[in-house]
């Protein structure tokens, strides 16, 4: 990726996670380039939270993320497709519980 074109950033890539509101977990919103973690946080604030999207930001070096190989999709995920009984959807959630 780096050096792919003359406009490619010489800086490492960071993944950005934002907590939309208190009590909700951080969600991945995108990625950006920055020289270090502090700048990445600063850039994430400017790029992703201008419209009041968040109350907390995490940045993680993209290189630190180990991802599954798309070729392993069948053996990793397909087997679960036929086991709907693993979903906790057979219980009635009382209305007053709200968001779970």
């Amino acid at each position, binding site marked *: 990726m780096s050096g792919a074109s003359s406009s490619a*950033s010489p800086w490492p890539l960071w993944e950005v996670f934002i907590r939309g509101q208190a009590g909700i977990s951080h969600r991945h919103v995108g990625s*950006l*380039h920055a020289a270090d973690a502090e*700048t990445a946080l600063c850039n994430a604030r*400017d*790029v992703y939270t*201008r419209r009041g999207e968040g109350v907390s930001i995490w940045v993680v070096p993209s290189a630190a993320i180990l991802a599954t190989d798309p070729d392993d999709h069948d053996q990793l995920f397909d087997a679960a497709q036929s086991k709907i009984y693993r979903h906790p959807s057979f219980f009635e959630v009382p209305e007053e519980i709200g968001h779970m």
Partner: protein
Amino acid sequence: MVLADPALVGVLGLRMGDNALILGQRLSEWCGHAPVLEEDIATANIALDLIGQASNWLKLAGEVEGGGRSADDLAFLRDAREFTNVLLVEQPDPDFAHTLMRQYLFDSWHAEMLDRLVDSTEARIAEVAAKSAKEAAYHRRRSADLIVRLGDGSEESHARMQAALDALYPFAGELDQPDDCDKALAAAAIAPDLGELAGEVASARTIVFGRAGLSVPTDVPVRSGGKSGLHSEALGYLLAEMQILQRSHPGAKW
């Protein structure tokens, strides 16, 4: 001539508004051209913050004037001679180092000024300042960080930042020089004493420039005139671009 308090409020509104408007317009010229995407977005964000602030200040100035001029009228239908921004904010951008240095020299004063204006005895000034103060504090934090990183960066970044500081420092003094209006505003506790404010700003800048390894020029003459409408050539070109639509199609709305 000493103006009555209401007119002074208008002068302050116009000056704060013009500084924010002209710097916002200057910064917006980087939109789509900044060195990296993230910087491009951040720069455009700051430009928009400043133009939003300008809109509040100019609205106030128009109301105080009582002649029915809106913020848009003041922004788009005045000539260079009627603009009261300091010369610093209209200076062009030979490189990005100048952009960042101009920004830090302004932000370091602006954030401190707004913090004081929040306590103004004039409620309308305090109200507009309160809307802008948090944004300005963030702008200052961001630009100070970049000054340190690039001043204390590579040989080339250091040289560029030092050249930008040498070129722009003479313009920063205008922010600190009180004219009769500034003195009357301070006497009425509508605005802070600019000389006193300058001391605080200078201490903060000394720390940042020290960390950046940059030498602050000494014994430089102050380049001023903007507050009384005597601008550099650069402002004319900026206004021509900013105002062309309203000038060519008066009253156009979209």
